[in-house]
């Protein structure tokens, strides 16, 4: 049944709330599908090895590595990328706003992956102590900030602390 042409497969998925029908090559990674086919370039690609976390997106609501999933596997599932966070160019998501306030990014390469790793459980994570927050960040590498400002940004969102 196989010939030398790469197999192309029709998929139907929901990306950032919009239903998407597409035809993909079986070996296309979800990262490349998002970036190249859908032009959603917020999801970054660092290592394609599962190590850096820059490609983290939500798959059925859970943070996962988009570089370790084939686009065909998104068939019948929902994907959310960093582009889903802000309501508009003017109105950032509160977590993005907190990152901006606390200077939690420099080059910004790691930021989309970090935001998507935190977004689903933000209230729970923000209420953790510093060690536990660093633990939750262990799956995302940042080469610039030294993490301190990222921790600060997250802690500033703790619903149980009084904002000052």
């Amino acid at each position, binding site marked *: 049944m196989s010939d030398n042409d790469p*197999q192309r497969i029709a998929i139907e998925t929901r990306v950032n709330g919009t239903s998407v029908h597409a035809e993909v090559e*079986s*070996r296309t990674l979800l990262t490349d599908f998002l970036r190249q086919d859908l032009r959603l370039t917020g999801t970054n690609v660092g290592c394609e090895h*599962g190590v850096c*976390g820059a490609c983290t997106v939500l*798959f059925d609501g859970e943070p996962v590595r988009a570089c370790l999933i084939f686009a*065909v596997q998104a068939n019948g599932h929902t994907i959310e990328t960093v582009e889903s966070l802000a309501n508009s160019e003017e109105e950032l998501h509160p977590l993005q706003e907190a990152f901006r306030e606390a200077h939690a990014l420099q080059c910004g390469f790691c930021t989309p992956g970090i935001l998507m*790793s935190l977004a689903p459980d933000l209230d729970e994570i923000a209420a953790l102590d510093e060690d536990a927050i660093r633990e939750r960040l262990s*799956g995302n590498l940042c080469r610039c900030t030294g993490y301190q400002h990222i921790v600060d940004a997250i802690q500033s969102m703790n619903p149980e602390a009084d904002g000052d």
Partner: protein
Amino acid sequence: MKPPVFEYHAPGSTDEALALLGEHAWEAKILAGGQSLVPAMNFRLASPAILIDINGVDELSGIETAADGSLRIGAMTRQNVVESSDQVRAAAPLLHKAMPWIAHPQIRARGTLGGSIAHADPAAELPAVMLALGAEFHARGPSGERAIPADEFFFGLLMTALAPDEMLTAISIPAQAPRSGTAFVEFARRHGDYALAGVAVTLTLGSDGTCESAALGLLSVSEAPMLAVQAASALVGTAVELSDAEGAAELAAGEIDPTGDLHASADYRRHLVRVLVRRAVVEARAGIEDRG
């Protein structure tokens, strides 16, 4: 890099998956969580001609507790589901304790219990834990189903007792015996990295308060995940005092066959095993008193 061209199949049942595997065994690979296979494909270390994606086979995931308290966990059960399962915490505390040491939350959201066992990385936590738990693996192939005890499953570097046309379907774990304690300890440079060495221990005391049985699974210190058999049998019959733990640690350090690499020399791994076995045995023993 990008993965090589392959033919993709997404069967909806175990039977369908097995039929595909039977047809293509030597050129096909099962795709479970993909957290080891896809990086290997992206780096062209693996180039299967055919992938059989079993993520759509619902019957392969789920956790059941049997009447005798033992667990049966489907091969496709995600690592983060095992991690947060109350059934697992109750029947197999050792497994519950070990789960957070595997990689990062984003990896455990996709990675599966069966995938880690079938992959049989000597540096992985789960194979060593399964050895210490005395788990049994259920495999299905063209000639039907068979159960393989954990200590007959791991052969060498990434090698298992599974035939190319067989797949792992479920894992059985006996309920933790009364008057027993467990511990999992490992040393890694950074939490989430593969450990330089690690130890999983199960200890059971008899009615006279001495050790009736012991099992020590070791990771990252040999070609394959292994049981420290001499160390475990030396503990049997003792009261598991600190000196007994030290004796077992010394024996374990002699039983392993570590290799040196970029991350740690063979001598350093031996040293780690000595320290970690002692700590793990002491912790497992202390856990028994906690339970009253």
